[in-house]
């Protein structure tokens, strides 16, 4: 009797274990992953057969949006919307040093709770801008092709955000994509203006007065960058299809935002020119989504009339069978078509805002049907409003604010209500000092290099710019391998004097531990100076 009981118990346990294992296996193999591929600054008009044939060839099996709009004029704010579904009005992240409210349970956190590996692989994704989103950064630095190969092998389900960066300013095409500028520019001055676009990451609004004639050359340079992206995409597409990911992974390709090519006298976007706006060249971006066959519904349109970044996360959550949080304002645009309507908001300087705690101006935008209202509000109280009819004036050149009062009144009312709800999250205290080169400047020695005993005249000291009554920390590293010494010295004032050294001391104790590296910072706040690397010559 006892043996029979044991046998039955064992058999039942085995039976249920097998059933559970089978169900889990079935679920695992049928759970859908997501790749969100964003392309930096890719305007919608850069996606065409002559520029991105590989993307468009792949897009034959995708659903695409005819008119897709970003919701802000810079990367961080747009990416937060793509990764959370929150509008910029809700998220309140408008410059560096800000993060979304950590108390919110956001979609990526929900996915992580459900066992998804939620990952971003690029260094900039560790910035505080992307905190509290649920984005895992353990694999940051890993080659995305390698990471996807691993996921295809281990069959783990995941949400990956990958950002293609080489389409950002400067528009410096790589080898094989060069542009003959001479044929595109009118004269020497025009060439100089366009040359800045090839060499500079930031071109502040007003610093160079771009002319209408420059647009073509600037566009050609950016086009070359887009071609380079397209060839990169061909390799990515090969991995996506040949690795089996195509059958179990949704792929989204879009851009964070577009870029101005001189149409309004500037180049770039909010973070690169500090003259952020929401005109169509900034907000119109391409959008494609590939859905595995097992999820695709016949009734979904291949081409959707319009959508925005706000809709992307809602669409993805519904595809994955995850409940959509009620606070998300987007819609699943594959399922639900509604009349054109859009809201956007950007800070003037985006990531590079001069003082993150005091944003100079915000530009808000709203579209209803074919009318678009842009409303700029400065910190000092000044305001400016422009109205455009996107059907008759797609380039937004004719401001109809004074002429079409009825349309203005309606849009203003809607946008004012939206502006009223806009949030602006607190800025981390040291964000203003977080930019490169924020620490003290070296006075002596003036820069890295090789120094002999005679050059220093036997007197060895470091001096930097700053306050005599402040405390500083001087960090040093000398030598290498087993002989390396490092540490920190506390210094009052802006000079650390080691006094007069004898030649013998120099030869015995300084030269053998060369090179010596030092850097300095205020003890109470602020960033480090650049490293000073000194080679002590015998």
């Amino acid at each position, binding site marked *: 009797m006892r043996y*029979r009981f044991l*046998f*039955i118990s064992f*058999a*039942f346990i*085995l*039976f249920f274990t*097998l*059933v559970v*294992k*089978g169900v889990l*296996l079935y679920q695992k193999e049928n759970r859908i992953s997501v790749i969100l591929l964003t392309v930096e600054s890719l305007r919608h008009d850069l996606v065409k057969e002559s520029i991105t044939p590989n993307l468009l060839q792949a897009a034959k099996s995708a659903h695409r949006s005819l008119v897709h709009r970003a919701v802000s004029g810079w990367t961080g704010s747009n990416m937060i919307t793509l990764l959370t579904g929150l509008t910029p009005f809700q998220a309140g992240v408008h410059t560096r040093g800000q993060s979304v409210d950590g108390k919110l349970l956001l979609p990526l956190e929900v996915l992580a709770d459900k066992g998804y590996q939620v990952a971003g692989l*690029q*260094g*900039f994704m*560790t*910035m505080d801008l992307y905190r509290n989103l649920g984005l895992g950064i353990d694999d*940051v*630095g*890993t*080659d995305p*092709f*390698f990471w996807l*190969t*691993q996921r*295809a*092998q281990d069959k783990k389900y995941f949400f990956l955000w990958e950002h293609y*960066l*080489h389409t950002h300013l*400067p528009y*410096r095409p*790589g080898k094989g994509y060069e542009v003959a500028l001479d044929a595109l520019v009118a004269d020497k001055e025009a060439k100089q203006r366009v040359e800045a676009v090839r060499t500079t990451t930031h071109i502040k609004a007003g610093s160079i007065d771009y002319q209408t004639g420059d647009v073509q050359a600037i566009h050609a340079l950016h086009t070359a960058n887009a071609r380079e992206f397209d060839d990169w995409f061909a390799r990515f597409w090969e*991995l996506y299809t*040949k*690795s*089996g990911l195509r059958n179990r992974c949704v792929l989204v390709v879009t851009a964070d935002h577009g870029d101005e090519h001189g149409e309004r006298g500037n180049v770039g976007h909010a973070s690169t020119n500090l003259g952020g706006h929401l005109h169509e060249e900034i907000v119109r971006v391409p959008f494609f989504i590939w859905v595995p066959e097992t999820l695709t519904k016949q009734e979904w349109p291949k081409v959707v009339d319009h959508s925005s970044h706000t809709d992307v996360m809602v669409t993805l959550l519904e595809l994955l069978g995850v409940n959509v949080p009620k606070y998300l304002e987007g819609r699943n645009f594959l399922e639900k078509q509604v009349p054109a309507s859009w809201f956007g908001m950007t800070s003037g300087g985006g990531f590079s805002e001069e003082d993150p705690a005091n944003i100079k101006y915000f530009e808000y935008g709203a579209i209803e049907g074919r009318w678009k209202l842009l409303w700029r509000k400065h910190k000092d109280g000044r305001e400016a409003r422009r109205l455009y009819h996107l059907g008759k004036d797609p380039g937004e050149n004719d401001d109809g604010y004074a002429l079409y009062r009825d349309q203005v009144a309606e849009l203003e009312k809607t946008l004012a209500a939206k502006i009223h709800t806009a949030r602006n999250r607190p800025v981390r205290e040291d964000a203003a000092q*977080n930019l*490169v080169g924020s620490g003290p400047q070296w006075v002596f020695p003036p*820069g*890295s*290099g*090789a120094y002999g005993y005679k050059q220093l005249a036997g007197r060895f000291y470091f001096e930097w710019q700053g306050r005599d009554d402040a405390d500083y920390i001087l960090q040093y590293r000398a030598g290498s391998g087993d002989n390396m010494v490092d540490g920190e010295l506390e210094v009052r004032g802006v000079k650390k004097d080691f006094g007069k050294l004898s030649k013998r001391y120099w030869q015995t104790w300084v030269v053998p531990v060369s*090179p010596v590296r030092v*850097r300095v910072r205020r003890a109470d706040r602020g*960033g*480090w100076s*650049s*490293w000073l*690397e000194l*080679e002590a*010559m015998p």
Partner: protein
Amino acid sequence: MKWLKPAVVFLVCCISAILWCIHAVQAPFFNEDTRRTEAYLRAMYDKLAPDLQQERRLAKAYWRRYPDVRENQLWGEDGVLGIKGPADHYRNHGRQEGRIYTEIDWPEDIVQEKKLAQAYWDRYPDVAASAVWGRRSSMGVLGPRDHYRLFGRMEGRHWGE
């Protein structure tokens, strides 16, 4: 209850067999698509898997060549990405900026190297003034040899005292 024992055995066997069959059909041995996919993934893995020792050497070389990267809070020597920083910087920025991501040759005799470096700088003022390989660069006396290896010999420059 006589039927219970054979019924349980039968059920367990059936489920095991179904699971086995499902996976057998998907196994590379029976399925051409799976076989091709797995071969592709193995090849990709072999091609892309990083060699950590080499990555460390490359990172140190990149930091040495480019002090602005070395000091960076993200990609730098003390940055949060550790030795993955330079690779990430190069992939996302450096390549476009025309930077170089290769190892540095370390000379065996540093005293001799200093003489060779001085001679190279004296001979080629453009190298001596270079921010990466010049006299005041963070490469120090390692700069000239690095320049010669990467560019100089192709440009027909001379290496030696």
